């Protein structure tokens, strides 16, 4: 086994271990982790099986088999980045809806509190949560 293989295998294993650690700690969602684990496994396989890389390189018509790894990795990164942009856009939208709901609820609550301060005695015995719906503003 050549020295570069040892380095590649060690680095890949370390990467795999850190991905697993992140899942265990609950910091990384499984669907993202899957992509990382699969690509790391691919790297480990080809670190052991170097002739396999040459075989694949010939099949794709690549001169230096290593370029196949680079091309594949860059492609995977691009796809993954696009996926992340989509995920961020979705989060952006959800964030907006949530903060709008929050601000509208807060306004409603503050309005209810104001009306309760104004008429404290009559409504004292009632269930406060069953107050009439605030659809018409006082």
């Amino acid at each position, binding site marked *: 086994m050549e020295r570069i293989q040892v380095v590649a295998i060690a680095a890949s294993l370390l990467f795999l271990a850190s991905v697993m650690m992140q899942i265990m700690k609950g910091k990384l969602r499984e669907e993202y982790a899957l992509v990382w684990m699969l690509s790391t496994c691919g790297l480990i396989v080809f670190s052991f099986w170097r002739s396999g890389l040459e075989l694949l390189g010939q099949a794709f018509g690549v001169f230096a088999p290593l370029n196949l790894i680079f091309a594949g990795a860059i492609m995977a990164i691009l796809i993954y980045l696009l996926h992340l942009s989509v995920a961020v856009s979705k989060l*952006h939208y959800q*964030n*907006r809806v949530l*903060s*709008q709901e*929050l*601000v*509208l609820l*807060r*306004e409603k609550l503050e309005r209810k509190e104001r009306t309760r301060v104004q008429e404290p005695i009559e409504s004292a015995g009632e269930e406060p949560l069953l107050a009439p719906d*605030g*659809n*018409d*503003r006082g």
Partner: protein
Amino acid sequence: MNRQPRIAVVIPAYNEEASIASVVNAVNGITGQQALLTPVVVNDCSRDATRQIIATLPCIALNLPINLGIGGAVQTGIKYALDNGFDYAVQTDADGQHPPEFITVLLRELEKNDWDVAIGSRFINKQGFQSTFLRRAGIRYLQWLLKLITGCTISDPTSGMRLMNRKAMEVLYWCYPDEYPEAEAVIIYHRNGLKFGEVPVQMNERKGGTSSIQGLHTIYYMFKVTIAVVFTYLRR
């Protein structure tokens, strides 16, 4: 409709401490004729004293916990108006560019023509503040783009002064662009079969604050709006 229609005057405010009070007072000053106006200030997480100022003003104060941008702020006001039974919502600027007296003019034209949205336009009668040369060139480009896509001529596609009925509010409740929403919103009206038209209004130069569209932002703005307009149109 015999009773007075209730109109929510949505005022998106981001760092507008200098002018917000006079805008709210101007809106409150014209209550009591054809319509009942309620100023709804949407404070888009301002870093100045806007929040403290609007708390003391006779208006509905909605303080967003995070900055959503002008579109998200306007949409918040529309949601408020819809949830609270308002008949109409009108969007105005917090920097004093839109004289609120025109709200009743917009309402009259909307009812007369049976529109869902009435857009205030600076460029029909060419009165009042007419914006700078470069801005007008950009506006001309947007006119052309909207004409190409919708077939309608909108003389003032960037006008932020818009009165809408509940039908239009319900459409915008679910989809409203974040940034620079005006031109894109026209496509949304068109796609959802809303009837809209323009009403001549006068606008003033801004009293305080700065435009959100300056320098390199202009290029970004044109690019973003073009993409948004075309893709909003293509979206199924």
